[in-house]
């Protein structure tokens, strides 16, 4: 079965990023397909490679990047939410005249249409967050 996921909450706010990650991992283990994970609102903060949590804490961002690399996941960050919160890839940084980018490996920046498409293309859609 094809699942798509939306994450609406920052990586260390409550528990949404963790639950979404655990759900995605369990679904992949069962042989389901994850069509896309879309990060919206404060959820875009899941996509900064500059996050440096203490070594004995879980690294939410790195965990997503590693899962994306292992399973070829499509991790999409909403562009408008990302601009507000200072999440940029090289193209976005250049377009907006910024001196650096910070997108984490495995993430890409795109528009809200990607969420709608994910809902249409998937058998099930789940939202995690506030």
């Amino acid at each position: 079965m094809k699942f798509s996921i939306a994450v609406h909450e920052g990586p260390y706010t409550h528990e949404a990023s963790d639950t979404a990650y655990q759900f995605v991992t369990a679904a992949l283990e069962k042989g389901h397909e994850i069509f896309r994970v879309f990060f919206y609102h404060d959820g875009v903060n899941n996509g900064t490679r500059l996050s440096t949590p203490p070594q004995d804490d879980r690294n939410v961002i790195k965990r997503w990047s590693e899962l994306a690399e292992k399973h070829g996941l499509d991790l999409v960050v909403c562009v408008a939410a990302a601009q507000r919160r200072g999440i940029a890839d090289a193209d976005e940084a250049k377009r907006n005249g910024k001196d650096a980018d910070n997108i984490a490996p495995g993430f890409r920046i795109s528009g809200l249409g990607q969420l709608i498409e994910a809902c249409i293309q998937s058998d099930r859609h789940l939202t995690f967050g506030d």
Partner: protein
Amino acid sequence: MLHTINKSPYTKNSLDTCLRMAKEGSAILLIEDGVYAALTGSEITSTVETAMKKHTFYALSADLEARGIQDRVIDGIKVVDYAGFVDLAAENSGVQSWL
């Protein structure tokens, strides 16, 4: 339809809203702080027990254990792990995430 509740009934009204909207025979899964609704002997217990006559209630084991309330769950609420969560999402016709 599977309904997920991720907020405590003492901080948000998502469980109340869900119970008002859910069709009879729905599956309701308590996750994250939503698992506090599964606690027996609490202010919300009778509401949940009444709702259990119409719907099937589930609670996520990892979130119950993280809060130390796994041994105080209302009788009849089914405890599932993440794999069980995936199965519920797949078996039901759709998922409504109440936030």
